[in-house]
């Protein structure tokens, strides 16, 4: 078995392309594993930890603009790829990709298509503000997917956008629905009367998917990025989004979905929604109901969907109403086979909002938990790579996605964490989310099921039982298929709930029982 690295100087590719190229290389006969990454210090450190690059000067000197291939396999196969890596890095033109030579800059692109109205920006964070600013100055709205953009850059961009009458959605904006188009991680949802502004990417996905599953639809969905409602940013995009939805003839209900805002911004958003000319729904995960607000308030995404559907005159679907007694009974049945010492719930999320919502659902029962992105009142994990007590980990947090694809696209990190939790004899319940959508993994359930089965087998060999609870965010029109994903999880013995809030409520009931048993 041979291992080596190959450095290609000044070669930039996006992290999704590199993941796909690495998979193609690893599938070559004779290869055992391969990775393709930019030579950032963090990436090099990980490779060094795996035993790559010792004494290799090119590797030691590789920088963030250089491509590093790490190859492992039979000597002849590794040597063949290393000798001629180019075919593995050739881009195939996407569907309808147009002329062979692509523009090298935003300005060049706009010369070709002066009618562009929206720029999607997903370059590394340190370069993202520059591209976004160029787009604003050319009169374009910006969907800013990149994370790791400094807050002062965000504020400057949003002030400039406001002055120009444009929207900056992001940074760290996962999803939007504009003019019928789903951007980023968007799910396949029909158009309808419900409008939403969300400072919560998977929150928007879950909300839009549930509205669709109820038979209604989304007029527009405006993402703002998670920091928009901090007092530093002051809700600049949220407030502009509410204005736009209020003026939009296709929108009958205006929904705002976020984590608890900064106090000054909360007051401003509440005041704006109070004088909204359309029915308004405010969902602040984990926040207390504002007194006498005159606005429909929701503490979970499910409640927000219920309020929005009611305001739009649409019937309430049965799936929104889970019977608490049934959840409790189901939890009790699952916990019957535990071994002594199995005490904790561990939530491993690809969706940050679903992670946050799960904490809010736990807080309803006064339960304490740890998280890498904690709700106020919950503990922060001292080491995000290591769980403690009941823990909720958002694997899409900036720390985990620097230089690598989001966990909705690449399940590698979540698989590794799942294996780690499975090896911990204190774990009684695993809580997982599976997020479907245009850009997500082709098979989110399949990516994790063998790791789930291995963790359950480990628990069984210890004389215990590992309960796995999950929800699937998406619709039957998504390429992965809501029904197919749910069925695959069911077959593997995973308890699948209709919504993220219900899966979290099941785990909350389990945690209450685990606490009572004092195990």
């Amino acid at each position, binding site marked *: 078995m041979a291992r080596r690295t190959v450095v290609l100087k000044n070669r930039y590719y996006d992290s999704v392309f590199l993941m796909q190229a690495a998979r193609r290389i690893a599938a070559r006969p004779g290869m055992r594993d391969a990775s393709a990454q930019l030579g950032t210090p963090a990436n090099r450190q990980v490779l060094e930890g795996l035993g790559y690059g010792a004494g290799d000067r090119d590797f030691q000197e590789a920088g963030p*603009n250089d491509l590093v291939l790490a190859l492992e396999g039979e000597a002849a196969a590794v040597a063949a790829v290393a000798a001629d890596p180019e075919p593995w890095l050739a881009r195939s033109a996407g569907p309808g990709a147009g002329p062979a030579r692509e523009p090298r800059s935003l300005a060049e692109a706009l010369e070709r298509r002066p009618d562009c109205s929206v720029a999607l920006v997903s370059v590394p964070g340190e370069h993202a503000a*520059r591209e976004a600013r160029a787009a604003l100055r050319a009169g*374009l709205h910006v969907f800013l997917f990149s994370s790791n953009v400094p807050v002062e850059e965000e504020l400057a961009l949003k002030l400039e956008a406001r002055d120009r009458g444009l929207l900056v959605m992001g940074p760290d904006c996962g999803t939007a629905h504009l*003019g019928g188009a789903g951007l980023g991680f968007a799910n396949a949802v029909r158009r309808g009367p419900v409008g939403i502004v969300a400072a919560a990417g998977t929150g928007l996905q879950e909300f839009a998917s549930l509205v669709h599953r109820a038979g209604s639809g989304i007029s527009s969905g405006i993402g703002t990025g998670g920091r928009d409602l901090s007092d530093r940013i002051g809700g600049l995009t949220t407030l502009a989004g509410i*204005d736009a939805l209020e003026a939009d003839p296709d929108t009958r209900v205006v929904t705002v979905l976020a984590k608890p805002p900064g106090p000054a911004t909360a007051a401003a958003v509440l005041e704006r929604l109070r004088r909204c000319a359309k029915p308004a729904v405010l969902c602040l995960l984990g926040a207390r109901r504002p007194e006498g607000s005159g606005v429909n308030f929701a503490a979970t995404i499910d409640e927000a969907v219920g309020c929005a559907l009611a305001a739009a005159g649409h019937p309430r679907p049965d799936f929104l109403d889970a019977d608490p007694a049934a959840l409790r009974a189901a939890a009790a049945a699952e916990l019957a086979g535990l071994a002594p010492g199995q005490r904790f719930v561990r939530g491993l999320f690809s969706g940050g909002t679903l992670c946050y919502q799960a904490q809010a659902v736990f807080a309803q029962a006064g339960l304490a938990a740890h998280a890498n992105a904690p709700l106020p009142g919950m503990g922060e994990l001292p080491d995000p790579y290591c769980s403690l007590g009941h823990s909720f980990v958002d694997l899409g947090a900036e720390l985990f996605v620097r230089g690598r694809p989001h966990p909705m696209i690449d399940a590698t990190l979540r698989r590794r964490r799942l294996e780690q939790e499975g090896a911990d004899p204190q774990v009684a319940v695993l809580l997982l989310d599976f997020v479907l959508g245009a850009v997500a993994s082709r098979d989110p359930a399949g990516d994790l099921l063998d790791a789930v089965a291995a963790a359950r087998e480990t628990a069984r060999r210890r004389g215990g039982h590992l309960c796995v609870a999950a929800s699937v965010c998406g619709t039957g029109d998504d390429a992965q298929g809501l029904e197919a994903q749910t069925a695959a999880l069911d077959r593997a013995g995973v308890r699948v709930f209709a919504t993220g809030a219900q899966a979290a409520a099941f785990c909350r009931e389990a945690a209450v029982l685990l606490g009572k048993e004092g195990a």
Partner: protein
Amino acid sequence: MAQTLGGLLQERPVFVNVGVRDFADSLRAAGYDVVQVDWSPPAGGDAQLAVLLDDLL
């Protein structure tokens, strides 16, 4: 301002994609026009230098 934002929600957008190609592919597959930029880090990868150059030009 409201007019510009209203246009964003009402009109069929045309996109320019700077970054991850899958975003362009999924929009094209849904029937939208997208121009993909073949992006690479500017000025040898120095983000601050690139911003300074923007200000000079």
